[in-house]
Every structure is written in structure tokens, then in C-alpha cells.
């Protein structure tokens, strides 16, 4: 077991280094941030001084190693635009994003797990068709379109929910206020995630229902309820663990667009503005953070998977 975990970690390390290299190469292709400052009011000498101050006169690979060295000291660099440390910027935007992601993850599981299991148990019945059709709708509707529809209905027509930000402007923002702002983004994120997850859980449970041990359990005559709750659900834990692992990268991506639409003050909104102003250190920081999170999520999923399902071979 330890050997397995160690092996997974060892595989993850070169991937992580590769990620930083790809990241850096992409950023270098993006063009110089100096181009954004250029203008009739900025002299050549000032640009040159700026270039040296930012270390942009060094060759690319040296810039990379300097950055990597700083990284190992926990320093992600400074934003070219606002001169704030990147780590500080990320830290201040991380809270709202984690809140949004966490709640969406929980809501999507609450939606997906029972309906996936329900539709597997009632395969080819009306309820199953309804659930599967809804799940297809969930994975086919663009998040931003669903957001616009919700805003149209709940903000414009009914006036029930606020459509932008995290708190009402000018107030300190009570928990209820934040919750009201969260309803629509969470709905959109969890609906689209639940879409693919329902089908995944459904087919996994269908497979479990065909196993011999379930037939044995049924033959013992312990009743439908206990067959499903005692024998089927416990084994359904394996696909559910996988689903949680798959959701984390999806959440990170989905949050970028949803945060943009709802002006949610999180990492996604910060990243979009960094992308438009070519603020490399910030983009690099966010990409690195999210890649690390995804890697760790995959690692944890693999390990949990091995723990939950003893039949998985460890080599």
C-alpha cells in the first residue's frame, strides 16, 4: 500500500515540473507585458529600466529558474499591474472561490447520488427516463446561458435574487446576504456537474446490480430494501469517490466563466482580468495553483480508490 502511494507521488513530481515548464513557455509566447505600458508618454529609457527591474532582459530559461527558485521559497512574484504579491492576491480571492466550489460540490452530490441510484434501480421506467433526460440537459446547457436564464427569471422578472457580487453594495454582508448571492451560481455549477455525474453513478450502480453477490443477497430473501441499502450502496461508494475526484478540475474551470457572469469576487474573476492585462505572474500563479490542486485531487482519488476497492491491483 505504501509502495503504491509512494509510486503515485513519484509519478506526480515530473508531471508537476512539466506543468511549470509548459506554463512558462505559454506565458513567454504571450508577448511582453511592456507592450501594454508602451505609449507616447513613456520614454524608451523608462521602458528599458522597467525591463531590467522586471528581469525581462535575461534569457527565458534563466527567468524560469529564477521564478522556480523563488517559488520554492513560497514567493510567487509580484503582479505587474498592481505590484501586490501574487500569493497575497490569490489568498484574498481564494476564499470566495472555495466557498462557491465547496457548496456547489455538496449540492451536486446531493442531486447526483440519490438520482443516479434511483434511476439505476428503476431502469427503463418513467422515473429513470426523466432523470436521464434531465442529466443530459445538465451536461448540454452552457453554464453561461443557464446563468442568463436564471438572471432573467429570478432577478429581472421576479426580483427575488441579486445577480452580481457576493454581498449587497454598501452593506457589511450578513450570512443570509451572501447565501442569497450564492443561490444562482451554485445552481448553475451544480446542475452542470450533476449532469454527467448522474449518468456515471447510474451506470456504475447498474453494473453492481448485476453482480452475483447481489443475486445471492436477493436469494437469501432479506428484502429489497436491505439488498439495496446493505449490499448495493456500499459498493456504490467506489464510483462516488471517482466522481468527487473528477469534479474538482471541472469546478475550477467552470468557476472562471460563472464568476465572470455573476461578478463573484473569486479567483476566476481575478484570472480573467489578469488574462486581459497580460499579468504573467498572476496567471502563472493561478495556473500553477489549479494544476497542483488537480494533481493532488487525482492522487487522493487514486489512493481512496485503492482503499475503498480492495480488488484494484496495486501495481
Amino acid at each position, binding site marked *: 500500500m505504501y509502495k503504491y502511494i509512494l509510486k503515485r507521488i513519484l509519478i506526480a513530481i*515530473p508531471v508537476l515540473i512539466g506543468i511549470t515548464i509548459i506554463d512558462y513557455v505559454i506565458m513567454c*509566447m*504571450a508577448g511582453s507585458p511592456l507592450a501594454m505600458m508602451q505609449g507616447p508618454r513613456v520614454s524608451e529609457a523608462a521602458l528599458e529600466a522597467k525591463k531590467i527591474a522586471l528581469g525581462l532582459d535575461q534569457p527565458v530559461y534563466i527567468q524560469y529558474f529564477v521564478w522556480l527558485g523563488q517559488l520554492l521559497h513560497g514567493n510567487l512574484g509580484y503582479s505587474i499591474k498592481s505590484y501586490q504579491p501574487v500569493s497575497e492576491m490569490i489568498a484574498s480571492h481564494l476564499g470566495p472561490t472555495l466557498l462557491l466550489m465547496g457548496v456547489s460540490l455538496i449540492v451536486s452530490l446531493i442531486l447526483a447520488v440519490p438520482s443516479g441510484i434511483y434511476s439505476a434501480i428503476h431502469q427503463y421506467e418513467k422515473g429513470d427516463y426523466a432523470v436521464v433526460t434531465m442529466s443530459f440537459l445538465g451536461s*448540454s446547457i452552457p453554464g453561461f446561458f443557464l446563468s*442568463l436564464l436564471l438572471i432573467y427569471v429570478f432577478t429581472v422578472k421576479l426580483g427575488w435574487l441579486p445577480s452580481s457580487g457576493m454581498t449587497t453594495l454598501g452593506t457589511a454582508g450578513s450570512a443570509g446576504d451572501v447565501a442569497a448571492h450564492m443561490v444562482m451560481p451554485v445552481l448553475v455549477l451544480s446542475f452542470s456537474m450533476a449532469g454527467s455525474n448522474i449518468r456515471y453513478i447510474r451506470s456504475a450502480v447498474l453494473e453492481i446490480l448485476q453482480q452475483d453477490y447481489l443475486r445471492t443477497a436477493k436469494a437469501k430473501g432479506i428484502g429489497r430494501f436491505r439488498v439495496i441499502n446493505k449490499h448495493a450502496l456500499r459498493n456504490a461508494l467506489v464510483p462516488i469517490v471517482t466522481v468527487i475526484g473528477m469534479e474538482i478540475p471541472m469546478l*475550477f474551470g467552470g468557476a472562471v466563466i460563472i464568476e465572470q457572469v455573476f461578478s463573484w469576487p473569486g479567483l476566476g474573476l481575478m484570472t480573467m482580468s489578469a488574462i*486581459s492585462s497580460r499579468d504573467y505572474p498572476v*496567471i502563472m500563479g*493561478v495556473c500553477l495553483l489549479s494544476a497542483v490542486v*488537480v494533481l493532488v485531487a487525482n492522487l487522493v482519488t487514486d489512493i481512496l480508490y485503492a482503499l475503498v476497492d480492495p480488488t484494484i491491483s496495486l501495481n
Partner: protein
Amino acid sequence: MEQKKKKDITNESYLQTVFRRFRRHRLAMVSLVLLTVLVGAAILAPWIAPYDPNAIVGTFSGAPCPEHWLGTDQIGRDVLSRLLYAMRISLLVGVLATLISTVIGVMLGLVAGYFGGIPDMIIMRFTDMVMSFPYILLVLVAAAIFRPGLWNIILILGFVDWPGIARLVRGNVLNLRETNFVKGSIVSGMPVRHILFSEILPNTVAPILVYATSVLALSMLDEAALSFLGQGVQPPTASLGNMLNGAQSLTVLTTQPWLWIPAGLLIVILVMAINFIGDALRDALDPNSR
């Protein structure tokens, strides 16, 4: 039901079997018809669109009326005509991006699975790297760098979507390598090219096809999202995503729903139809199902 089962299916060809199974999926049949109609409309857009999509032909932001079934946009272009052309662009992006990523994924998967060892390790670690980046973030950064535009979007989506296919193909190749007919060919000294493309590839086409439908659906969604954010297909070329871009302004969102709801619904219908067809294909092509 009993009646149908008695029908003789012993002499059926493979394609007939697949089609017979496909037809059992009602929603997929409906989707197939719908998709055929929509794709037909998109291809025939220059002939059936009532107006030139980029010409100013009516009042600004006119509501739907008999001359303009879906109204006119902010600068007086006919929304229905733009919608038809937008569908063309969105389908083009989806199909080409899917083709590119499928070719890349299949090639890398074949090489990694068949040769194993160091090439396998390098390719799979590279796949892991690409997969670790949150997908949308990667596409957004790439779109910002390479200047948004139709062809760049196609290339970016094509070069980002392949890891799933590569993994799938590699897995299948690993299984097929252990089969007797492939082992036989290796022993008898058949050229690698023949084994890869004439023996292994045809046996893994079915799962690739199924996977490609989901890539098609995803890349159409991504194009829409990118264009919606202004990082995708650029105006005046209409795409389903950038037609929704206007809905970020409050007046359009609240008082001119004909400008954004039809485009959004069309994306949902197209993507959903593709997903249903993919689902039915998965069942129909699965050799383990009856």
C-alpha cells in the same frame, strides 16, 4: 416485443445490427432527425437565409415581426439569418476541432500503447500534464495569446481536447496487443504499419467514435463559452456564442430576449442531440449488449 424477437437476425450485417440497436433509443432517433434538419439548414444557409447576415436590413433592435421572424439586432441585422450562419460557424468549429483532436489522440494513443516503454511514458506523462490544467483556463490563456479568431479557436480546441482520446486508444491497444491475431501478425513479421492501422485501429474505431461525439459536444460548448466571453469567434462573423455576448448588457437581457434566447436554445438543442446520439451509439456499438 415477442413478434420482433422472432425476426431473423442471423444473416444481419454488422451495420444492420448497429442500426437495429440504435433505433431502440427513441430520443436518439428524434435527435438524429433534428440534427439532420439543423445541419441541413446550416449548410444551406446561403440559399435559405432571408437576408445577408451582415447587412443592415431593418430598424435597430426591432421586435419579431412578419418580415423578421426573430427580430433584428442592435444595428439592424436580421437575427434569423445570423442564426443560420452562426450555426454553420459553430458546427464547423466543433467538427474541425474534433477531427484534429481525434487524429492527434489516436496517433499518440497508438504509439504509446503499441511500443510501450519510454515513448509510452513520455506520452502519458505529457497527457497527464495537459489534463491537469483546468481545461477552460488553458483555452482562455491560449485564446488570449494567439489572438481570438475563427481558425485559432479551431486549432486551440483541437490541440487541447486530445488527451481523453489518447488514453482511451492506449488502453484499447494494450488489450488488443494481447489478442492472438495481433500476436500472430507480430510473430509472422508483418510490418508495424499494417498491424497498427489495419488490425488494431479498425478494432478500436467504435469506442473512438463514441468518444468523438462527446468531444464534438464539448468543443461546441467551449466555442460558445469563449465567444460569449469575447475571446472566441470575432464579430462581424456570427457564432452561436458571440450572439449571446450582447446579453451581457442589461437592456438586451431584460427587454430584447429575441436577441439571445434563440441562440442559446439552439446551442442546447444541438449539443443535446449530439449527446443523445453518442449515448445510443455507445449502446449500439457495444459488443456485449444484445
